[in-house]
């Protein structure tokens, strides 16, 4: 017999969907700053600082969604921190893909693009680690609110 109401519903993964939305917003901000500077990359550092702030809020939003999806299950805190890390990580990776594509396009249009491979790799690693750390912190701050004491019988 089939019990559709007992099966877990197919839900979009909050970490991925929030990360995707966040990276689209960050790409729009990055492009806006890029063109405001006359198609120069002077504003990249500013965008990166904004991005670090965005990691925290995206992590919070994703973790909150994850927590609300499974509030009435046996493991209400499962995957909350993971959703926070996931959202920040997806944003970070998609932003790096965008930056590489942007530089390839700038290069193809005849601009001089100077890039040191080791520095570039180092920047990606630092950014990804920061994204995981900040996203994890955001996720843990949400998880803490949904922690219940299993020995507390006052709600029975």
């Amino acid at each position, binding site marked *: 017999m089939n019990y559709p109401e007992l099966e877990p519903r197919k839900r979009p993964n909050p970490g991925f969907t929030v990360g995707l939305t966040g990276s689209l*917003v960050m790409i729009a901000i990055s492009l*806006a700053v890029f063109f*405001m500077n006359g198609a120069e990359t002077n504003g990249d550092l500013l965008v990166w600082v904004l991005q670090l702030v965005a990691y925290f*809020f995206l992590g*919070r*939003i994703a973790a*909150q969604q994850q927590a609300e999806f499974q509030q009435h299950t046996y493991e209400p805190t499962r995957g909350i921190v993971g959703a926070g890390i996931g959202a920040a990580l997806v944003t970070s990776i998609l932003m790096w893909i965008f930056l590489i594509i942007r530089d390839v396009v700038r290069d193809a249009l005849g601009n001089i693009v100077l890039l040191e491979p080791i520095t570039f790799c180092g920047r990606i690693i630092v950014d990804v680690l920061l994204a995981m750390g900040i996203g994890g912190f955001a996720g843990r*701050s949400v998880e*803490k*609110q*949904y*922690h219940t004491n299993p020995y507390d019988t006052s709600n029975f």
Partner: protein
Amino acid sequence: MNAEPWEDIVRFICGWWWLILLIIALGLTAYFTRNLWLGWLGL
């Protein structure tokens, strides 16, 4: 429940981030197009 004091402002930003972003975008658009519309206002 176990919320810290700073989480109120975080919760506000998480709920209204799109409105904050819209206001910033509209403000910047107005600023960068001021040459177009300041004339209409007679300034």
